[in-house]
């Protein structure tokens, strides 16, 4: 086994960003992601790079907008309330087609909510979040190693597609420590050069304009159709998920992040008592593994969405299966974490139910 270190999720994200060549970090304090900002305040300066604790989340995301425009790797991080403030800037980044990596360590909402772990920002993460017709690639890691790995990959994809990439994690994954293999960053080698469009580069001959303003007649629609093409390519190539024990499954759970860890354990408990349960774990929340879900829906009668929100991902599962099977919901919220025994109880109930009945835990 390669050498492992015990590391917090938030710090693992920071270290992965440093390894991946993040040149500028801009952030503002908010629990439960504070360890990440704190880690960067030391590591970025040690590396001679840029760290600013900004005056607000709004300033942080706009500093990222500027840094991305001059062609360096940049990131910011926050939790729900701060991510809400950043949405304006993320929309501008998406409109101007700049690369950006950002992190949401989700906590309970709405409003100031609480600081407990949650997945309640699913809609915000996957449905745009800010204004306008755009998409963001969303990774949903489920352990410390994946937070490290998908941070590195996130920077690559941001550069490859010139798009905002979000690491959607939660207060448990951010604050927990787990063994981690500190892999070295490997440049994929085929990322497009930024030389043609970055600002402030004396080597470019013609002045460059980076903007999200397109006021000419039909100009914005044309641009948005172009973006859409890119999103379709991403949906085709970048969807990621993990399948566990699906071959003989009678009921399939769908869960990501922390919820997927618990669902997996519930799956094993259910199997121990003879119920053939399986798990599909989306790793990208956008693009969502809808094709695969549709295929599976033809083979099973029941799916169970397990999430730390009240039916947000459930909606996407139902959209994907398009009525081909029943989709039930196990949702917890505001710091409530699904428990294995409660999930297995619900699975038993589902297996004994008939007809069109949709069973929820609340």
């Amino acid at each position, binding site marked *: 086994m390669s050498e492992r270190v015990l590391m917090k999720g938030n710090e693992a994200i920071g270290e992965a960003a440093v390894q991946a060549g993040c040149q500028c970090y801009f952030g503002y304090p908010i629990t439960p992601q504070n360890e990440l900002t704190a880690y960067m305040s030391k590591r970025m300066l040690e590396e001679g790079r840029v760290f600013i604790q900004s005056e607000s989340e709004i300033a942080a995301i*706009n500093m990222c907008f500027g*840094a991305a425009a001059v*062609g360096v790797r940049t990131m910011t991080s926050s939790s729900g309330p701060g991510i809400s403030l950043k949405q304006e800037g993320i929309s501008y980044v998406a409109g101007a087609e700049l690369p950006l990596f950002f992190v949401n360590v989700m906590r309970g909402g709405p409003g100031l909510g609480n600081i407990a772990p949650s997945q309640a920002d699913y809609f915000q993460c996957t449905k745009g979040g800010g204004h306008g017709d755009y998409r963001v690639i969303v990774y949903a890691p489920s352990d410390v190693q994946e937070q490290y790995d998908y941070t590195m990959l996130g920077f690559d994809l941001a550069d490859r597609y010139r798009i905002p990439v979000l690491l959607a994690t939660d207060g448990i994954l951010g604050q927990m420590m787990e063994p981690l293999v500190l892999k070295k960053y490997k440049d994929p080698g085929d990322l497009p050069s930024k030389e043609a469009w970055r600002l402030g580069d004396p080597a470019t001959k013609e002045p460059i304009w980076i903007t999200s303003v397109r006021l000419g007649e039909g100009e914005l629609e044309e641009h948005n159709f172009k973006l859409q093409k890119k999103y379709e390519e991403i949906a085709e190539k970048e969807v990621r998920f993990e399948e566990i024990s699906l071959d003989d499954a009678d009921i399939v759970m769908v869960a990501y992040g922390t919820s997927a860890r618990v669902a997996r354990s519930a799956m094993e408990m259910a199997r121990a008592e003879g119920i053939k349960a399986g798990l599909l774990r989306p790793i990208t929340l956008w693009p969502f593994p809808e094709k695969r879900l549709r295929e599976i829906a033809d083979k099973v009668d029941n799916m169970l969405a397990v999430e730390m929100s009240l039916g947000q991902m459930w909606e996407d599962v139902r959209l994907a299966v398009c009525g081909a099977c029943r989709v039930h919901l196990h949702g917890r919220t505001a710091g409530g974490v699904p428990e294995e025994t409660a999930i297995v109880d619900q699975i038993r109930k589902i297996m004994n139910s008939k007809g069109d009945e949709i069973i929820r835990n609340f």
Partner: protein
Amino acid sequence: MERIFTMPEAMKPEQTLYCPGCGHGIIHRLVAELVDEFGIRDRTIGIAPVGCSVFADKYWNFDVISAAHGRAPAVATGMKRGRPDSFVICYQGDGDLAAIGTAETIHAANRGEHFVTVFVNNAIYGMTGGQMAPTTLVGQRSMTCQLGRDPAIMGYPIRVCELLKDLPGVAFMARGSVDSPKNVLKTKKYLKKAYSNVLEGKGYSFVEIVSTCPTNWGMTPVKALEWLRENMLEHYELGVFRDCDAEA
């Protein structure tokens, strides 16, 4: 024949679409002339803010980025920190700089960010059709203070230079005007000092320029200049508010 007046290289050969008597055209040109004089066009990045100058890219012949409303100082910070060899000009109006973007303005100044801020103060929101600005004078009428600005209800016009000048990160701060050839030249002198400060790494440099908006003021260009001189210059006193060299 000797050519004695021409377009700066840093200006595109375009006619501006600004209203007759608007100060933006003159100020754009001052910004561009200095870019040429310092020979920094290839590494200059201008910020086109939200407001009438959102299309500054059509006139400036160097790199331009469009910032969200009020966020220009944060965008400028990100660009300058990300690419320290760039020369960043943060061009903002009064609503952008002193209302929605006040926090970004103060903190960029306080960090002593190494870019030039050009603050165009015409005491009104131009692009959206003449609403009250943070710098609208007491008694002045606008679309959203139709009975005149009443400080008891709407607060007082902000003097930005006076507010920011004591922040330690500020290297240079001055207020000029473009109401007369003499003041245009003086304003250029202030801007030149701001550019050289930033190029020499001395810190945040800020020039406020008192300007006109004849259309939204509801005046002819000539009358607007008179109104500026008679009303604005009393509240917005011209001069240098901070100069780190003079202090040294």
